[in-house]
């Protein structure tokens, strides 16, 4: 595993032309997408969760293998690992999943099962969920190795009156090899990327507008959120996000009062991975919520 990570680290610093040649040479007996993909397994992303009494998190877990193999018995099991907002592990839960079946997990209940002292239960954090490749699917893939699934599942959030909102994963964080419980990281190196979300923000429409950033690499990451208005005035906020951790930049009409409130634009600087773009969580005066990735 460390050889794979070292190779990927070296490759990530190469110029594009050299990288292409090196990638072909390095990966000639492996998967073209990643040197660590050598067998059968799944790639999973890191997700944001919140459970603070006002909002809760819903995980509607679908046995997606059944969609690709409806005629096979795809009964399997899965695991959920929950981190606090600094990336510390809070607990791990395993669950069965039947063929064509699904499971709804609520984070407030899962956290309760971890039996943590009340002072150790944070109000938000991150999680990773993996569904094991079913035995029958592994047998069917046989000679097609390496073969991986990228589980792009949806996570939901629900308010106190039961309104749900959903968003899908946006990036890759962990590689789960079939039969091994501990995943490896997808990204071996920390890089610098910027993202300019398309969303025009009319901040007066929201009671709270959170811009949520996750750290999918193994080192702490400095990140900066810049908010600009139509007159090119700007405000900025900074944070350091721990590995597997999360930071919420909360924007309100009050803390953006120096800016024209219509058609604000966001820019995120310091993303460690190319696709770790922000999640925005909108809360309205009516109590309604909605979430989206940008």
């Amino acid at each position, binding site marked *: 595993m460390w050889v794979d990570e070292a190779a990927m680290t070296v490759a990530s610093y190469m110029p594009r032309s050299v990288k292409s040649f090196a990638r072909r040479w390095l990966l000639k007996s492996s*998967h*073209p*997408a990643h040197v660590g*993909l050598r067998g059968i397994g799944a*790639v999973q992303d890191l997700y944001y969760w919140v459970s603070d009494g006002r909002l809760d998190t*819903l995980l*509607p877990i*679908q046995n997606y293998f*059944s*969609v*690709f*193999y*409806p005629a096979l018995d795809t009964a399997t099991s899965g695991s959920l690992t929950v981190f606090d907002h600094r990336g510390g592990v809070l607990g791990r839960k395993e669950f069965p999943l*039947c063929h064509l*079946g*699904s*499971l*709804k997990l*609520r984070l407030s209940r899962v956290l309760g099962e971890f039996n943590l002292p009340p002072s150790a239960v944070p109000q938000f954090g991150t999680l990773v969920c993996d569904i094991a490749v079913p035995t029958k699917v592994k047998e069917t893939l046989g000679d*097609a190795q*390496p*073969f*991986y*699934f*990228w*589980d*792009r599942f*949806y996570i*939901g959030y*629900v308010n106190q*009156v*039961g*309104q*749900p*909102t*959903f968003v899908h994963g946006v990036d890759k964080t962990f590689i789960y090899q079939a039969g091994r419980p501990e995943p490896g990281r997808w990204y071996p190196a920390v890089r610098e990327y*910027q*993202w*300019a*979300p*398309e*969303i*025009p923000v009319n901040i007066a*429409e929201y009671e709270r507008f959170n811009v949520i950033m996750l750290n999918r690499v193994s080192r702490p990451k400095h990140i900066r959120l810049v908010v*600009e208005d139509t007159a090119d005035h700007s405000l900025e906020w900074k944070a350091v996000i721990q590995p597997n951790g999360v930071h919420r930049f909360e924007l309100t009409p009050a803390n953006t009062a120096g800016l024209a409130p219509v*058609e604000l*634009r966001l*820019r995120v600087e310091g993303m460690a991975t*190319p696709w770790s*773009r922000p999640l925005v969580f*909108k809360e*309205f005066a*009516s*109590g*309604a*919520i*909605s*979430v*989206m990735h*940008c």
Partner: protein
Amino acid sequence: MQTSLLNLISTPVPVLNSLGLELNVGLSSDDPVVGRRPSEPFMAYLSLYGPDGKWLERKELGEIPPHRRRLFPLSELVRRFVSSEDHLVVVHRVPARLASQVRSVDEPLEMEQEPDYSMWRSLIQYSYPGRGNGSVIYETPPRLNVRKPGAPPSTTLTFTSKIVLSSTVRTYAVPIHYSMDSRYAASSRYRYFVFDQSGRQVLDRTITMPAFTVKVLDLGREIAPEIIRQAMDPADGLATFTFVAYSDDAALAPLIINAMPSLGGVTVEHTHPAQAFLMPSNDKDKNRLKGMAIAAWRGAGSDSKQENSHVGG
């Protein structure tokens, strides 16, 4: 090469009049991937289709100056053409410097190479006016439903776990049948299944969608009330289901809308095509596996030649 300016950056959008949702579209003149392409002025256009897929009109929405976001309210404009039914509109962005080189943006422009605007997505925002809004970003996949002579049509396999129902929560699946070829005229059969948590199939239906149309599938009405009651979690009152759908004659892109009208809450997400879940070492295995899965689903459950069939109960 002949380049269609309207197809450079476009997004097909359902207008959901039947759900009472207002529609806004957010557009940016910046490449979301900072540093890849410099910002420049864009012109925004809207193509309107009738509920039957018939072409109606194209409207210029306005200019997006460099380094700006614009939120265009569309409901009032489109209701002048279709007042109450659901239908399709398409939002286009064209760089102003290219739009100025043609008499009409309908005309193709001769270019050495088609510019790469991948990841240039539109923000689609539905709202209950004065209350909540929900938004999603996506773009038209390259060459969507552009058929090559003699080649088989594109196909669809899609699934989602976002089907949540309660006494106040409604969920709608909204497949979009669009093509980047304006001459496209095919109809598509879209078959969809719903499963409860135990894996029991509770719905199996087939609809036919003409080109350039959308359809609102009200899953709370289509799933039998008794099944919804059985699936409800007594702790939170939510019944959750999963959705699987396929089409073997077109690529359809569904949106999933979850709404709580009493609160003014609405949220929208797209689904990913099934092939986006597959990472084989040989890329051809994606289509092979997807094709095998669609063939298996075609033979699954009841023979759904007739439209609208409940299963279970």
